[in-house]
């Protein structure tokens, strides 16, 4: 073994340093030439699969929504349903039979024409694959082909929100002869998959034969920035045209940036603090109410979240059908005196006799949750309730939830379909997930009645009643509804945010 000559190493060092310095200060790389209209979308999440039968996370949904079409869609920026692959739809009196009339001359990327048979095949395929979202199809008993362009869903029970469900990505038809959809997705949508480098980027190209006309963009490049701070830098530098997943801390600074446009909308995701009513001490309603009064909501909304969320007063967010604005009057507000009084009435004057309570969270995807938890911890300490925060990774957190091994937990709830039923039944009915052990037979009955009622007026009344009962029982601390944000370069036109986090690149243009 011989060691390199004495002079070699310093020379190499000097060379490296010189090259680095030169690169840094002399050469400013020219921006890439752009012959095509490319939209670079920066996002913090990496899609997991592009098969609509398996996709069940917002990042995958974002891509699937643009490669495929679903039976129904939303009107721009709203939660109102709009025709998509189905031109119109109707339900039987008791909401057990749903008929969808398909648009004609819709073709897949491979040229296959969309027919009722294909819709039936796609639904049955998804049911058979048993991917993560397959449970959404549990309500479907069978799919019938009425004629070439009419498909009928026969449900196992009355289910009024079924039309909302038909916007979910699992209702994307796939051609029967396509194989390996995870890698080679074939849809009817405005874009086709060009390439996918996992953890790095996805490139979509325009489907020039799209049935609504070719999209305005030639390419959409979805680039993954796991850290929102880096995404912000990329946006400010113009490397990213559209940023989805900017964290609340950066909203204020970006909204003041003259080069960047902001879009925001009230969301449907709710953030709440659940309490375990299966065991001491939260089987005590008075204690739960005391906790509800003890938390400084304004501090959370204004200081921690910087106004990027609005207050949640009851089980439903304001943007969903069935929301009762009166809840803002009768819901819980910060009131330490009331909290202390109720705490004493509950049998724990100044927290005496109360053990240290465990608050479990999982902050990996929403970092601000840690801050909110810290404020709650301190708020409760002020009235003498001691809380220990435990931040777990997601599967460990869920494991604790499903085993009912917690005192309190904080999490957000993403609806699968935009109907109050997807909040009330799974979260508050004892027939639902029943994570908290909340049990009120009246709530159970009303929730069931509401899901079977077709008439909107009647449903609204039932949901109003439900909100009042649930708030009075205080099974949770109702925290907040994060707003949705998108930031883009000023030359990006036509992008609309949807409350249901439906991401549509079809109308987007770069001018």
């Amino acid at each position, binding site marked *: *073994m011989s*060691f390199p000559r*004495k002079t070699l*190493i*310093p020379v*190499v*060092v000097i060379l490296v340093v010189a090259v680095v310095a030169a*690169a*840094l200060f002399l050469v*400013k*790389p020219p*921006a*890439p030439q752009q012959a095509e209209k*490319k939209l670079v979308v920066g996002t913090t999440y*990496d899609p*997991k*699969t592009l098969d609509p039968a*398996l996709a*069940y*996370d917002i990042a995958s949904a974002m891509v699937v929504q643009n490669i495929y079409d679903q039976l129904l869609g939303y009107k721009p920026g709203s939660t109102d349903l709009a025709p998509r692959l189905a031109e119109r739809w109707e339900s039987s009196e008791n909401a057990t039979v749903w008929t969808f009339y398909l648009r004609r001359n819709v073709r897949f990327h491979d040229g296959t024409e969309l027919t009722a048979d294909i819709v039936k095949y796609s639904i049955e395929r998804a049911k058979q*694959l*048993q*991917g*993560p979202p*397959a*449970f959404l199809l549990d309500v479907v008993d069978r799919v019938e082909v009425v004629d070439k362009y009419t498909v009928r869903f026969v449900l196992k029970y009355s289910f009024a929100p079924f039309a909302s469900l038909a916007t979910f990505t699992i209702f994307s038809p796939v051609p029967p002869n396509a194989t390996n959809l*995870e890698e080679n997705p074939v849809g009817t949508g405005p874009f086709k998959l060009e390439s996918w*480098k*996992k*953890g*790095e*980027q996805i490139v979509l190209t325009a489907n020039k034969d799209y049935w609504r006309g070719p999209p305005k963009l030639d390419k959409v*490049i979805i*680039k*993954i*920035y*796991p*850290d929102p*701070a*880096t*995404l912000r*830098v*990329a946006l*400010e*530098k113009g*490397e*990213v045209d559209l940023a989805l997943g900017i964290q609340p801390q950066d909203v204020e600074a970006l909204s003041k940036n003259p080069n960047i446009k902001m879009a925001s909308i009230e969301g449907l995701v709710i953030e709440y603090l659940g309490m375990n009513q299966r065991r001491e001490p939260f089987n005590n309603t008075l204690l739960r109410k005391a906790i509800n009064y003890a938390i400084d909501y304004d501090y959370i909304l204004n200081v921690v979240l910087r106004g990027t969320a609005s207050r949640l007063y009851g089980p439903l967010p304001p943007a969903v059908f069935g929301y009762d604005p009166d809840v803002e009057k009768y819901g819980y507000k910060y009131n330490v005196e009331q909290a202390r009084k109720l705490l004493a009435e509950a049998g724990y004057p100044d927290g005496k006799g109360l053990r240290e309570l465990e608050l479990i969270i999982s902050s990996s995807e929403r970092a601000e949750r840690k801050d909110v938890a810290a404020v709650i911890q301190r708020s409760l300490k002020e009235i003498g309730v001691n809380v220990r925060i435990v931040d777990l*990774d*997601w*599967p*460990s*957190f*869920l*494991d604790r939830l*499903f085993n009912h091994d917690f005192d309190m937990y904080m*999490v957000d*709830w993403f609806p*699968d379909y935009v109907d109050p039923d997807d909040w009330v039944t*799974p979260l508050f009915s004892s027939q639902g*997930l029943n994570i908290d052990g909340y049990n009120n037979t009246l709530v159970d009955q009303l929730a069931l009645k509401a899901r079977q009622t077709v008439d909107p007026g009647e449903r609204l009344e039932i949901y109003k009643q439900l909100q009042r009962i649930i708030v009075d029982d205080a099974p949770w601390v109702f925290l907040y509804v994060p707003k949705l944000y998108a930031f883009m370069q000023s030359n990006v036109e036509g992008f609309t945010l949807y409350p249901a986090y439906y991401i549509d690149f079809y109308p987007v243009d770069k001018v």
Partner: protein
Amino acid sequence: MARNILQYVFYRLLQSILSVFGAVVIVFILSRVLPGNPAAAILGPKATPENIARVTREWGLDKSYLEQFIVYFSRLIRGDLGDSYIMGYNVSRLIAERLPASLELVVFAFALSLVIGVTLGALAARKHDTKLDLALTSLSVMGFSFPTLLLGVILLILFGVNLGLPVGGRLDARFTVKTYTGLMLIDTLLNGNINAFIDAFMRIIPPALTLAIPLSGLLVKLTRNSVLEVMNQDYVRTAKMKKLPEKVIMYKHVMRNALIPIVTIAGLYFAVLVTGDVVVETIFAWPGLGRLVWEAVTLRDYMVIQGSVLLVSIIYITVNLIVDTLYVYIDPRIRG
């Protein structure tokens, strides 16, 4: 001598296979000890026990651990790492997609720190107890004392915001570059796109510096101490007394022996670096192995965890093997 080394390597190789098997078993058990499972992780809080049970069955996770291990192992010896539950892809493909990014970053960072570290370290030793030595050692201590977490954040802002240089990811998404090797610095050149090369080169600097600053600090100190140590050995002093030229003493006697601990530590660090640094890869949007393992663990994607830890252990054990062989080569007295 050569035959002995071959024998030694062969012997060690056999042991290494055993170590890799041990790592496979341990990681298999460990990943199942983690609470939760991939079905629950992907279904989220809305999952009913029935849903979880159904997806679990679909993925064959309802079988006993032993059955699962036998299935896994019989596929493994045929060279099949299994499929990711969540992505549906074969694990070897997932790893193959991430490995070039990791390698590119690590080799870059490692070369940078090795050159800086060993050169400055040797310099400090030769000029020991001078002002230069003091300056170099102080710098080195500061280098490896600096918290990487903060270093990454600072470099991101310094390069990206203050200097206005490209940062984050491996290449500006607006460049179209055909993939040949997966190594961006080489691919951009093969594409003949010099602008893309400059862009890629600038993007690798901040994450590479984040990894290299502490490591070169460490290597400076290590090299200096090691060289000093050897310079005080009897045989070096004897050589000095024999009035051999300083150059000869330095390279023939000092550096050769001083390299032993440097090779050990540097080898270990290389192995650690290759496995990826979650923090650096997250901050600089670098699609490397660190994030793959992290995502796999946080989604309980067992096959991906097993596959990537298998790779890590193979890399680690290979590096160790090389290090130990070099030991034997450098210092023939050591042979177990």
